[in-house]
Structure formats: C-alpha cells, structure tokens
C-alpha cells in the first residue's frame, strides 16, 4: 500500500516534470526562431518540420560530447553546481497550479516557497564560478550573484504587494482573488517592476551580464561542457518558463479565463489558458532580448538600488494605504 502510494506520487511528479522539460526544450527553439524572425533570418529549419526538433538534436550533440574538467577545479562542486541550478529551478514547479486543484502540492505558503527555492538557486551560480578556478567564470559568478541578490529584493517586494492584495501566501487563493479583475490592472506599475526584476533574476537581456559573451566568454559556466552544460542550459530556460508562469499567475489570473469561455468541455481549458499566458511572457522575454542592448554593470546596480528598489518600497507602502483608506481590505472580519 505504501509502495503503491509512493509510486503514485512519483508518477504524479513525472506527469508534471516531463512536460516541463519538454516545454523548456521548446523554449530554446522558440527563442532561436523568434530572434531569427526579428532579425530577418530563417533560423534553424533543418531538423524536423520548421526545425522544431532542433533542441533534441542539440541535446544529443551535447550529451555525446566530452566533458572537460579543468585541472585545478574542485571537482565535486564543479559537478554539483549545474545539478543545483537545474534541480532548484525544477522544484519551483511543485506549487504551481495548472488548473483548479491540478497541483502537486497546494502548499499554504506556496509563494514563499517559490521565493526560497529561487534564492537557493543562486548557490549553483556561486559554486560553478568558484569551483572552476578560472577568472572568467569567477568574475561571471560574482556579477551574477550580486545581481540576483539585488534584484531578488525588488522581486520580493512586488510579490509582497500581491500578497497584501489577497491576504494569502497560497497561490490558488491568489488566483481565485483575481476572478473580479486581473491584478495587472490595479497593480500596473507593480507588474512592470516585477517583470523587469524577473528579467534580471533569470539573467536575461538587458541584464545578461553574467554570460556577457563579448566580455566574459560565457560567464560563470565558461568551463562547463558537455552534459553538465546541458544542466545549466536547462536550468536557465526552466527558470525563464517558471518566471513566465509566475507572472501569469500573479498578475494575469493564472488558469482563470475571462467569462467569454465556459469551461464545460472534456478538455481542461484551464491548463491551456495558463499555457497560452505563459507563452506570451516567454515571447516577451525573447522580444526584450531582440530589442535591448546590454546594460553596463554599474548602471545595472545603480538602476536596482536607487531606481527600482525605492519605487518598489514606495509601492509596498502605497498599496496597503489605498486598501485601508477606501476600506477595501479583502480579509477583514
């Protein structure tokens, strides 16, 4: 009985995990195709129809490649770092509801859990840069860590405002609270602040200093190759998809759809709705990369600490003030 339930739980996790990894794989091809379209190129179009099987070809190539470990590297941490990055960006999916009740864990402190897990992900970057014993990787990891820690404050403040609006840490409750109106409408400035810090958190353009190809070779994973490079790659794109999903959940009503569509079909429309919203934000990530040039490092830090953070803190004060002033607190007895 216990073995059966364990197997059942394992199956449940796999049902979430396998499509997530597939989505991450297709995220890479989306990025390449969209970037190509924006630069008037064709992009990969040889493997499969329109090149849709390109990520699998890439993965296969990387898997059969030799893994080179630098002679002076701390081997255990060198191998552990990519695993940490991938595992902790996958763990974030445990509390994401894909439809009413369709979640691995309906954890009461779900959003706090997500923040904590994404914070631990920084260790992967730190270990990778330090253990490789290469100055490029080390500088890349230092930059990356400082950037992620700084922008986490802004991200946390934006999430805090959503928590104040709903009075709950539970992601399902947050989604249910957006039935009247998506939070992007009352919290439009918060959404902008959130999305900018999400870009920085996932090391994407214009904040992609950690892997600034023109300056630092490849940032903190300069020395990683072959299979362990795949882990880093998957971890990064996984956190992009996770951040897109979180944006859809926190500000765009998650799996809830406008009343236009009525969910009485056999197909679970809610999951498809969440998927579509996530796709929109994944596209936004790529669009930003195609449009914006990279920021200089000091500009990045100044922008965070003197620009974004004061605005975020001001909003943290403003939103509850509005709720109290107009007596529209949701959780008053």
């Amino acid at each position, binding site marked *: 009985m216990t073995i059966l339930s364990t197997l059942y739980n394992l199956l449940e996790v796999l049902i979430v995990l396998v499509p997530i990894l597939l989505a991450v794989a297709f995220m890479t091809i989306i990025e390449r195709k969209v970037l190509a379209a924006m630069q008037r190129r064709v992009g990969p179009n040889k493997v499969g129809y329109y090149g849709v099987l390109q990520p699998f070809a890439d993965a296969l190539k990387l898997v059969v490649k030799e893994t080179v470990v630098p002679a002076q590297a701390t081997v255990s941490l060198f191998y552990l770092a990519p695993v940490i990055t991938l595992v902790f960006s996958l763990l974030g999916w445990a509390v994401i509801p894909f439809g009413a009740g369709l979640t691995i864990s309906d954890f009461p402190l779900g959003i706090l859990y997500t923040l904590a897990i994404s914070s631990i992900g920084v260790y992967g970057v730190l270990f990778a840069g330090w253990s490789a014993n290469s100055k490029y990787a080390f500088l890349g990891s230092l930059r990356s860590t400082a950037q992620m820690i700084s922008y986490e404050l802004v991200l946390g403040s934006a999430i805090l405002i959503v928590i104040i609006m709903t009075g709950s840490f539970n992601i399902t409750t947050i989604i249910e609270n957006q039935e009247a109106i998506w939070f992007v409408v009352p919290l439009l400035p918060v959404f902008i602040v959130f999305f900018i810090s999400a870009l920085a958190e996932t090391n994407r353009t214009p904040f992609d200093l950690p892997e600034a190809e023109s300056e630092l070779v490849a940032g903190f994973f300069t020395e990683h190759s072959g299979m362990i490079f795949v882990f880093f790659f998957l971890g990064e794109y996984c956190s992009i998809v996770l951040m897109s999903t979180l944006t859809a959940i926190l500000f765009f009503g998650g799996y809830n759809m406008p009343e236009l569509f009525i969910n009485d079909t056999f197909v679970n429309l809610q999951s498809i709705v969440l998927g579509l919203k996530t796709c929109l934000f994944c596209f936004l990530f790529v669009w930003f990369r195609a449009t914006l040039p990279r920021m200089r490092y000091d500009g990045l830090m100044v922008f965070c600490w003197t620009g974004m953070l004061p605005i975020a803190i001001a909003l943290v004060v403003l939103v509850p003030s509005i709720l109290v002033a107009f007596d529209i607190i*949701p959780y008053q007895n």
Partner: protein
Amino acid sequence: MSGFHGFRQDMPPPGGYEPIKYKRNLPVRGFGGAVVFSAVTAICVFGFWRVGKANGEKRELKREQAWSRINIVPLLLAEQDRDAYRRQQAALSREKEIMKDYPGWEAGKSAYNSSRYTPNTIVVL
C-alpha cells in the same frame, strides 16, 4: 619666408566660438510623461474600484455566513443534545447487557457519592 615677420596668430573669432551643438535632434515620439502617468493612474483607479467591489462582496458573503451560523446555533445545540442523549441511552443498554451476570450491579449509577447534577463532559461514541 616673408610670412614669418608679418606673423598673425590664428585666434578664435571675437566673442569666442559658439557652444558645440551636441544635442541630438530626434523627433518627439509617443505620449508625454503627463499623459502616460495619468493613463496609468486611470487604469489603476479602475482596477482598484473593481477590486474594492469584489472585496466588498466577499466580505458581505462572509458576514452572511457568520450570521446564518449564529442564527442556527439553537438548532445545532438541540441536535447535539439529542445525539448525546441517544448515545447515552445506547451506552446504558450496552452496560446492562454486558454486566447482566454480575449480581448487585446497577447500570448507569453515578460514580459520585452525591445526588448533585453533573452534566456529561464526554460524548459516548
């Protein structure tokens, strides 16, 4: 070499050079700051108005539920009493059945050596 004695230093024009024009001449595009700010404010006001309406409704539902619970308290208490009485009688008959071979046993006799009424603090399951 005649110019060497009739030398004239190349000087800036009287009053100095005019300042270098480094400002880029780009056309003004999009909305001005005031327009964007008021548009965002308007959107937020609309959003908070909807949020306020929804939260008011939520609180009204919560209040209604609390009062409906308060109003059926007598009914709930009566049901509880009826249930406790039924369970007590059943326990009594069980006790009689179990202790029927024991001479001098009074089923349901109070454990206290007093006739003062003590309400049941336990519900027999």
